[in-house]
């Protein structure tokens, strides 16, 4: 009786391990799909960010035209390397819906 029980248990474990290995292989496949798509998505995201920064710069030039002593697009940091802009900065002059999409859109997807 014990033998049968333990036999069933061990058989169950063996099946589990096999299926887990299979799942790991499937996960590797999914991750590889992601790896191969990353450059495309990164490039598009970069272009979008730069375009939004450009538009913000032009808007800023328009808005702060008459303020004395304001350098348009002045760097807020003491360095000249690339600082990744914050989401709030980028989407400042756009409707709030776009910022929400950017922040939480992935949650809805997952």
């Amino acid at each position, binding site marked *: 009786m014990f033998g049968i029980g333990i036999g069933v248990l061990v058989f169950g474990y063996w099946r589990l391990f096999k299926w887990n290995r299979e799942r790991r292989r499937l996960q590797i*496949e999914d991750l590889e799909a992601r790896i191969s798509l990353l*450059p*495309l998505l*990164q*490039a*598009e995201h*970069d*272009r979008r960010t730069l375009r939004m920064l450009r538009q913000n710069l032009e808007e800023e030039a328009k808005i702060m035209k008459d303020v004395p002593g304001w350098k348009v697009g002045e760097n807020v940091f003491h360095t*000249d390397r690339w600082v990744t802009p914050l989401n709030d900065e980028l989407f400042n002059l756009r409707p709030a819906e776009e910022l929400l999409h950017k922040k939480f859109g992935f949650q809805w997807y997952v």
Partner: protein
Amino acid sequence: VNVKVNVSSAVLKAAAHHYGSQCDKANKEFMLCRWEEKDPRKCLNEGRKVNECALQFFRQIKTNCAEPFTEYWTCLDYSNLSELRRCRKQQHAFDSCVLDKLGWERPALGDLSKITKVQTDRPFPENAYHSRPRPEPNPVIEGELQPSKHGSRLFFWNW
């Protein structure tokens, strides 16, 4: 001219493995540039090449293997999580079609995650972080070092 790659996510995932093996060169160069320079403004040219390669890739699929590909990605779209294991039949059909017409092989499991060496003409950027000049290292201590007299002299210990 920058044209967006106008496809949806299921399509991308369906074609991802072949895309990874075909457009490998442009992708790796772009990623290398991005990682080394840490500045998206410096990598716009490589990004453009990536985009062109992707467009070329999808154009080739459309002209040659449109039918099996459409079936494959509609099948993937149907499942909730775009699981690849639900669509093995269509994947097989698509793979054989692509192999016959274009000679592309699907990379084996684990091939896309291998570490590769990338060859570029771009020189390695010095000081990608734009850091200020580092201070001089400490000069070499000359003379014999003796254990200190009267012990360690830390607080009250004198041994």
